[in-house]
């Protein structure tokens, strides 16, 4: 078996040959949801295993194992790091605009106006918005 070597070009990655690579991710930067989503995106290209690291509880190791023993997985390290950023931003945005998105979807399927129930119920004689009132 080849011995493990740390790549100088990518110091965060450790590989055995080209077909087995591991990176350690700090969960204070990337949440578990982002780690799962990013890992899942690569399951068509390699086998993936996630592990907690008892000696460093904030770290999670992502290990990539090639589906074919001669495949070179090292280029995937950069890709998975970018994917982690992408997924973390998506989750942050989703948290930020999630309630607004839910309201838009709910309004699209609702019969009345969800923000102002009276707005669509009134008629011109009642003039609930006071449009006809002189200023």
């Amino acid at each position: 078996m080849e011995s493990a070597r740390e790549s100088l070009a990518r110091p965060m990655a450790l590989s055995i040959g080209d077909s087995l690579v591991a990176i350690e991710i700090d969960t204070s930067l990337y949440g578990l949801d982002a780690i799962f989503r990013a890992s899942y995106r690569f399951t068509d290209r390699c086998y993936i295993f996630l592990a907690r690291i008892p000696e460093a509880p904030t770290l999670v190791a992502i290990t990539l194992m090639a589906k074919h023993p001669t495949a070179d997985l090292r280029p995937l390290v950069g890709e998975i790091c970018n994917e982690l950023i992408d997924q973390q931003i998506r989750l942050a945005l989703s948290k930020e605009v999630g309630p607004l998105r839910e309201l838009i979807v709910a309004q699209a399927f609702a019969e009345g106006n969800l923000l102002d129930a009276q707005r669509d119920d009134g008629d011109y004689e009642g003039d609930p918005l006071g449009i006809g009132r002189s200023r």
Partner: protein
Amino acid sequence: MHSEMTETTKAILSELAAADNGSCKLPIAQDLYPEESLAVAIEAFALYCDVEIGGATLALHMRAEHRRESRKIIGSFLSFLLDSAAHIRLRAEAER
């Protein structure tokens, strides 16, 4: 991320590098892979390998007739496990 890799990561790499030998022992964390995900993966691969869970360790042993394809089976087991765990997370998120 750290330039110094931990011993756990090195051990995982060594175990997976030897996956062609027909067995593999990996650390398993409950918050990453809940019991339900392990149960479905073990059931799905029961024809191909025996799985032992001892504390925080998962040990896979290929059945003799499948030992030649052990890398593929171990890898597929891990992907299946990740898939199950991801679905459980998504389901929990939707229920929140």
